[in-house]
């Protein structure tokens, strides 16, 4: 294991996609000028739940210049995902406000808007459910016969005994809110019909998800090609949603017989696309006085919204992450994904992990404050280590860094000392606030807090997922001796192109410029699985390493045959005592040859997804974070001033980019904790875009102290495991831990806004400021 200091890098590895993006040369989907292209528009339900009584087109309007699509026009009206319960267009009932009912296409936006005014949809509104608890007992059925998309039970040891043998029972209920991805580029797709062929281009993460959905929609009667356009951010928001949007574009394009663009503006995008699942947790811990946790009972409810989308898998990750980084011998976890009449929840960086880690970390805080023990001590006492088992009985055999990351942030941040210093510093300020005598405060004085969290993220798909997907890649030797990678892994701003090319180049011992990437086009690249779940570097990367070995073998054979000599390969050269050939020269001999590789988990990894036992993930990435915050005693604004974090990611393929991901992801997690609030009013999100959905900006960026720990994963490329999601996961609990520290109060819900903090003292001073 080695500790890596980013600033020690001699030369930073520049991202391969940086220059054209910085220069504004990249053409995003909206920038494409396609001759004859019409635009599409969606007419949506104003009700969260209603019967559709009828759709009328105004006879007085000239419909010849407009194309109209309703549910009746759709060969198979189901978006193929896990449950096929979501229609492309609602036919008889609408289940969320904003659900698509009618599609229109026309030459320009003005005509579209005009046409939309001449469509009348009659509804009979029905009672709607927005609450996961009400949903489970309601007679109104949204999904199946119990409104549950999925239920998971995990059990280990004997919780009943744990309760009897423990000193104390500690309970907490926690709650997390919606979160919007707010990728810079809103959703957009273009569909181009030519005979039986439909070509889809779009801003998307998972080209094969879209292909499968559109194949299925046309019942196999069209030939579908999906091409990824340059994608301006995704964060999971372009994992599931583009299947629906591409369906809309394809339906209109085919009916209109011309290219069709569906582009959401920001307001439509934030109103109707998926959000992070809100969550509710009821957690119980059975503990000893020294803080050791003997048993836990954790109950998780995720609000899945009106349709299933990916909720069962999000729920699985939540359940499998619920224990955080702790070793607890007796565990009962019950997790449910519940249907409500809300915009379907979907994938978002962390994928159920942030909710679960927030809940368990708040349980730890509660244990610490109940037992009057330092929060770091309770964590330390329970951290899991190599050789121990998780809630599913998974034996952690390698690459376990819960303790190393934890110790590292404690040391680097000076947590223990600051904890005491800040408590002393705060004492007077809190006294004044409790008395309500603000005028005694010194000018500019702030409350200071320090908080800690430990987190983990299972790398790659959950459970047996990877063995179902069987991701493939192909690598071809070009006539000039360069190698070309064909994979469906997508760049969306996270640095995938750089990582993939770097892995291949390092594996072959050649320069990165001698490795090129195919366009992401489903006619050309094999299905290497979706670009999600922090899996690409680890899974696709490991296939590249295998492919590289075969490439070297092949070129060596061809070269040996030609030269009638034997060669060894090292550092980019084939050589023997008399000759030396650079890889690229030698590879020309094997031009046109290609190798395909298909992923399967190493056989030691076994999971039972009926009993929920075994190896939930091939490996976990680990992180710890210390957040230092300042709270203004006048406005209760919270600022994260310094954020110290250690991440064990196995191996940093591009250290510079790894640090950037950690900073960005952590900031997104800080947003989740302190700023990003969406309220639901009768099923309607109260946000319209950047003005009212508040995300942190550069000004809110704390001073970051990032360190990378490289505890290798034996089956990853150069030891690498997942990174993309982990930084977000532990940020909110670290920040909120600092709030516990300052206010000595229970905090169990995010986001925490100044409005909430101000109320603490309104309560205490007994001053009622309302009229």
């Amino acid at each position: 294991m080695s500790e890596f200091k980013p600033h020690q890098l001699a030369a930073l590895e520049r991202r391969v996609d940086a220059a054209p993006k910085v220069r504004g040369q990249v053409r995003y989907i909206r920038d494409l000028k396609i001759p004859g292209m019409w635009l599409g528009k969606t007419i949506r339900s104003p009700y969260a739940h209603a019967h559709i009584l009828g759709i009328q087109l105004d006879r007085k309007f000239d419909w010849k210049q407009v194309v109209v699509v309703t549910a009746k026009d759709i060969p198979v009206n189901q978006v193929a995902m896990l449950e096929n319960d979501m229609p492309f267009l609602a036919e008889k009932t609408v289940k969320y406000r904003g659900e698509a009912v009618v599609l229109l296409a026309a030459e320009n936006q003005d005509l579209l808007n005009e046409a939309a005014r001449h469509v009348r949809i009659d509804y009979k509104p029905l009672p709607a459910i927005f609450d996961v608890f009400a949903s489970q007992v309601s007679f109104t059925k949204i999904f199946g016969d119990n409104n549950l998309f999925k239920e998971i039970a995990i059990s280990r040891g004997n919780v009943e005994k744990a309760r009897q043998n423990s000193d104390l029972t500690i309970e907490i209920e926690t709650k997390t809110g919606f979160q919007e991805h707010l990728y810079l580029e809103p959703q957009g797709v273009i569909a181009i019909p030519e005979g039986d062929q439909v070509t889809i281009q779009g801003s998307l993460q998972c080209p094969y998800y879209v292909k499968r959905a559109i194949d299925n929609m046309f019942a196999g009667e069209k030939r579908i090609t999906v091409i990824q356009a340059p994608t301006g951010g995704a964060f999971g928001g372009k994992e599931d949603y583009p299947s629906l949007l591409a369906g809309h574009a394809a339906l209109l394009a085919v009916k209109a017989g011309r290219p069709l663009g569906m582009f959401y503006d920001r307001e439509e995008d934030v109103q109707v696309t998926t959000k992070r699942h809100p969550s509710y947790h009821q957690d119980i811990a059975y503990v000893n006085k020294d803080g050791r946790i003997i048993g836990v009972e954790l109950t998780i409810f995720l609000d899945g919204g009106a349709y299933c989308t990916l909720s069962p898998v999000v729920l699985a990750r939540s359940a499998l992450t619920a224990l955080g980084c702790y070793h607890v011998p007796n565990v009962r976890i019950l997790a449910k994904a519940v249907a409500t009449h809300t915009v379907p929840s979907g994938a978002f960086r962390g994928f159920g992990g942030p909710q679960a880690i927030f809940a368990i970390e708040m349980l730890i805080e509660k244990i610490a404050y109940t037992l009057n023990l330092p929060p770091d001590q309770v964590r330390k006492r329970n951290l899991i280590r190599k050789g121990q088992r998780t809630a599913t009985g998974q034996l952690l055999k390698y690459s376990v860094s819960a303790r190393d990351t934890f110790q590292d942030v404690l040391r680097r941040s000076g947590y223990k000392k600051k904890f005491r210093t800040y408590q002393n510093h705060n004492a007077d300020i809190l006294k004044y606030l409790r008395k309500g005598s603000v005028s005694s405060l010194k000018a500019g004085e702030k409350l200071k807090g320090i908080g800690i969290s430990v987190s983990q993220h299972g790398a790659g798909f959950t459970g047996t997922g990877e063995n179902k997907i069987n991701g493939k890649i192909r690598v071809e030797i070009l006539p000039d001796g360069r190698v070309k990678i064909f994979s469906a892994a997508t760049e969306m701003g996270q640095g995938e192109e750089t990582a993939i090319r770097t892995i291949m180049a390092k594996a072959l011992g050649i320069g990165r410029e001698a490795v090129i990437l195919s366009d992401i086009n489903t006619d050309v690249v094999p299905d290497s699985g979706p670009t999600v779940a922090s899996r690409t570097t680890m899974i696709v990367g490991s296939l590249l390493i295998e492919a590289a070995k075969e490439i070297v073998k092949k070129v060596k054979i061809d070269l040996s045959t030609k030269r009638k000599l034997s060669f060894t390969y090292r550092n980019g050269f084939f050589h023997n005592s008399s000759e030396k050939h650079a890889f690229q020269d030698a590879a020309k001999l094997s031009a046109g040859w290609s190798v395909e590789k298909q992923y399967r988990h190493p056989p030691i990894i076994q999971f039972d997804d009926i009993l929920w036992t075994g190896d939930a993930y091939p490996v976990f990435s680990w992180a710890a974070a210390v957040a230092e915050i300042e709270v203004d005693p006048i406005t209760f604004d919270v600022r994260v001033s310094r954020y110290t974090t250690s991440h064990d990611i196995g191996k940093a393929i591009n250290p510079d980019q790894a640090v950037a991901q950690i900073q960005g992801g952590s900031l997104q997690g800080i947003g989740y904790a302190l700023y990003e609030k969406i309220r639901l009013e009768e099923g309607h999100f109260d946000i319209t875009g950047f003005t009212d959905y508040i995300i942190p900006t550069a000004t809110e960026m704390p001073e970051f102290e990032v360190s990378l720990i490289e505890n290798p994963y034996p089956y990853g490329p150069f030891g690498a495991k997942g990174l993309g999601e982990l930084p977000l996961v532990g940020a909110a609990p670290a920040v909120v831990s600092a709030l516990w520290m300052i206010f000595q109060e229970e905090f169990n819900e995010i986001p925490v806004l100044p409005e909430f903090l101000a109320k603490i003292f309104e309560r205490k001073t007994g001053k009622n400021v309302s009229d």
Partner: protein
Amino acid sequence: MTDRIDIISPVNLAQLDHILEKLRKPATYVAGATDIMVQKSRWEQAGTLIDLRTVQELVSTLEIGPEGILIGAALSFTDIIRYRIIQEKFPILVESCRQIGSVQIQNRATLGGNIANASPAGDTLPVLAVLNAELWIGPRLKDNFTKMSVDEIMTGPGKNCLQPNQYIAYIYLPFPEPTDPFWYFRKVGQRYSMAISKLSLAVLGWKHNNHIREIRICAGSVSPRIKRAVLTEKLLSNQELNSKVIEKAATQLMKEIKPITDIRSTHNYRKSTAGRLLQESLSTWARAGK
């Protein structure tokens, strides 16, 4: 729905007034366009835009007399912040301009736009109110501008009382009395930059023999129009600042303002925080005097 938008770019006030006199269809003024760009429906339907940034007097003129200064309504915040005389005499205005949006926004946005846009959250409005700003409204009638105060021009959120052919030409700021003025401006946003105020407070005051001789107080984002807190001002005048007086004043201010709950904040928070801001400002002042 319009196919074309006409843009008129008058070069000076005379030309602007002449054009307005001739104009038959409704027109929309544009200064920095930082508000109007995001209010798409407003300019899409306008048909005719009048660019005030090309009017020489409105961007470059800054007439300084012995009594006060005239700021061109289409001068950008960045320009305002850089003026020496404004820095010297009106640090409270500079402070509020600096907290608008971001540097990029400040480079374009104007004082005239902030006033005409009439948002209760406009950050310069409470400051202009405590500075007793006078708005000079064009076109000139017999060579004279119409004069108005900030609380007169604003009739409600997003609404001002200007006629279609009327515009803000200048903002006249009388120099505050130079003897030891105390000033305080604080903006409370949902984050530190690029944030619309959920609350702001501007205070300007003078003491005499340790007693408050005059104080002007105005909170932003707490009522549909910008109004000075006259009752709180009255309560404080001739008082000596001590913690009891400060607390009473805060209670009075909380009674006097009528904030609402909206997407950005709550009634309760705005109210209690306004009280705390006033306490902060007055106790700072009390300490500064010692």
